[in-house]
C-alpha cells in the first residue's frame, strides 16, 4: 500500500445559494492509498458529500487539486470528467438510484452501454456481476420487486460494471437494516480483495467505520482528525457485541 490512489491538496469548494456563498470545503488535505478502505464521518453539512463528489469527478474544486490515479481532475473539461467517471469510478448511493423502469440486469448494463461494450458481452458480464453479488435469481426482477439490500447489491454490481479502480459510497448502508448493512460490507470487502480496488465511504454508520482501514472525521470543511486505531477497535468491538446480540450470544 505504497501507491497513492487519491490525493486532495488544499481543496476548497464554495456553493452559491442566491447571494450567499456557502463554503463546503475550506482547504482540505487527504491521501488515500491504493487498495485502502477509508471512511469519512462527520455531521451533516460538514462537506462529506462534496468531498466525495470532487473525488468522483462530479464536480471541480474552486481551489486546490484533486489527483486520482495520477490524473489531476481540476484540469479536466466536462466531457473528460464524464469519461473519467465512466472508466475509473463506481458510485453507490444511499437510495440505490436504480433506474426504476429497467430490470436488475439492464441496470447493470447501463454503464457498459455508455462505454460502448457490445450487447452480448454486456449481457454476459452483467450476469457474472449479478452472480458475484448473489443475485443470480433476481436477474430480470424490477427494482421495486426487490428488497433494499438486494437493490443495493444491484447498485454494487452496476458500480463494478466497467472495472473501476475507485468505488465511492455515499451513505451506502444509510437505508439498510443492520443485517443487510453487514452483508453489504462483507460483499464490498470481498470485491475489494478480488479487484484490488480503493473504497471511500461517506457514512454515519459504525458498521461501515468498523470495517474500514482508516477513518477521518471532517468538520467545517476540513479534516478535523483521523480516528485512532483505538477508536476503530472500539467500533469493531461494539460492532462484534452488536452482532453477538443479534445472534443471541448474550
Amino acid at each position: 500500500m505504497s501507491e497513492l490512489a487519491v490525493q486532495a491538496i488544499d481543496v476548497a469548494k464554495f456553493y452559491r445559494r442566491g447571494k450567499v456563498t456557502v463554503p463546503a470545503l475550506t482547504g482540505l488535505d487527504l491521501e488515500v492509498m491504493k487498495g485502502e478502505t477509508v471512511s469519512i464521518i462527520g455531521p451533516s453539512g460538514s462537506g462529506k458529500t462534496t468531498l466525495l463528489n470532487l473525488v468522483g469527478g462530479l464536480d471541480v474544486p474552486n481551489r486546490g487539486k484533486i489527483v486520482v490515479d495520477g490524473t489531476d481532475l481540476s484540469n479536466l473539461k466536462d466531457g473528460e470528467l464524464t469519461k473519467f467517471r465512466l472508466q475509473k469510478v463506481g458510485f453507490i448511493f444511499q437510495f440505490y438510484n436504480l433506474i426504476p423502469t429497467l430490470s436488475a440486469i439492464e441496470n447493470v448494463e447501463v454503464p457498459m452501454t455508455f462505454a460502448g461494450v457490445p450487447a452480448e458481452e454486456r449481457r454476459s458480464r452483467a450476469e457474472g456481476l449479478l452472480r458475484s453479488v448473489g443475485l443470480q435469481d433476481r436477474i430480470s426482477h424490477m427494482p421495486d420487486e426487490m428488497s433494499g439490500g438486494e437493490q443495493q447489491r444491484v447498485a454494487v454490481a452496476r458500480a463494478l460494471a466497467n472495472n473501476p479502480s475507485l468505488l465511492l459510497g455515499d451513505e451506502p448502508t444509510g437505508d439498510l437494516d443492520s443485517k443487510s448493512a453487514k452483508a453489504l460490507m462483507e460483499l464490498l470487502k470481498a470485491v475489494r480483495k478480488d479487484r484490488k480496488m480503493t473504497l471511500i465511504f461517506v457514512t454515519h454508520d459504525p458498521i461501515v467505520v468498523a470495517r474500514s482501514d482508516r477513518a477521518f472525521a471532517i468538520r467545517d470543511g476540513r479534516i478535523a482528525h483521523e480516528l485512532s486505531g483505538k477508536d476503530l477497535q472500539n467500533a469493531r468491538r461494539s460492532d462484534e457485541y452488536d452482532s453477538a446480540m443479534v445472534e443471541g450470544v448474550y
Partner: protein
Amino acid sequence: MDESLVSNIDNITGVYAASPQLTSTAYVDGDTVFLYGIDPATYSSVTNGLTIVNGSGLSASGGNQILVSNSLASNLDIGVGSTVTVGPNSTGGSSYTVTGVFNPGTSFGPGARSVYVPLANAQTIAGKDGKVTEIYVKANTADDISTVAAAITSSISGVNAVTSSSLAATGSALSDTLTSFFTIIGLVALMAGAFGVVNTMMMSTSERTREIGTLKALGAQRGTILKTFLSEALLIGLIGGLAGITVGAAISFVLPSLTGSGAAGAVSSFGGPGGLLRGGLQTSITATNLLLGVTLGVIVGTLAGIYPAWRASKMDPVEALRHV
C-alpha cells in the same frame, strides 16, 4: 324568366337541347318540400336525369303526376300509386298520383326533400304561369360550351348563362375554403400538440432529475442524455402521428355515410336537384396524407423535445443527485 326563352335558346347555334325548370317550395301532405317543375320530354337529354328506383319517370302526357325522393316516400309512408295532396301551403292543394320514387343520392339536405312534377303543374302550384327559374342547356360539344354561354348572355337580355365549369369553379372555391379552414385547424392542433410534447417532456425531465443525475454519475455524456430524451420526444410524436391518422382514417370512412354518399359523386350532380352537396361529402385517404400525418407528428414531436432534452443534458449532476 319567361318560358318562351327556351325556344330562343334552342335556336342558338351550338345548342343541342334546352330544358326549363321551375324551382319552388310546396307542401306534400302538409310537409314542406322542394318542388321542381320539369319538362319530361327534354329533361333527361340535357341533364343526367333522375335515378328512378321504383315506378317510372314523369310521362310527357302531363296530368297530376309526381315523383318523390325515396327518403320522403319513407317519411310520408307513400309509394308508387299513392295519392298525395300537393299545394302552395299546408292546408290546400290538388291530388297527385305518385308515379315513381327516385334516389337523390343523399339522405339529408334539399335533395332528400325534393319532388318533381311536370312544369305546367309546378307553375300552377307556385302561381307562376309561363315562368321558369332555370333553363338547362346542353351544347353540342364540350368545346362549344363557352361560345354558347356567351351567345345566350349577349342575345337574351336579363339572362346570365352559367357553365358547369364555372359551377365547378365555385365548387372548387368552396373546397379551397374548406381546405384552408382545415389547414388552419390542423396548424392549431399541431401547435397544441407541440405544446403538449414540450409540457410532457418538461414534466418527464423534472420528475427524472435524480435519474439523470445518476446516469451522469455513471458516465453518460451530455450527448447521450440529449439523444435519450430526443428519442423519447420522437416516439411521442410517432405514436401521436399514428393515432392521428388512425382516427382521421376512421372519420374518413364514417363521414360520407353521414352526409349521404352519392355514387355519382358531387361534381356530376352540379346543377341537379339539391345543388352542390347533393352527392354528400367525399373523402379520400391517400398515401401522401398518411405519410404527411406521421412525418409531421415525428417532426413536431422531435422539435418540441429539443429544449427539454437540452435542459436535461445540461443538468449539473451534483444538483440533480441532490434532487428528491
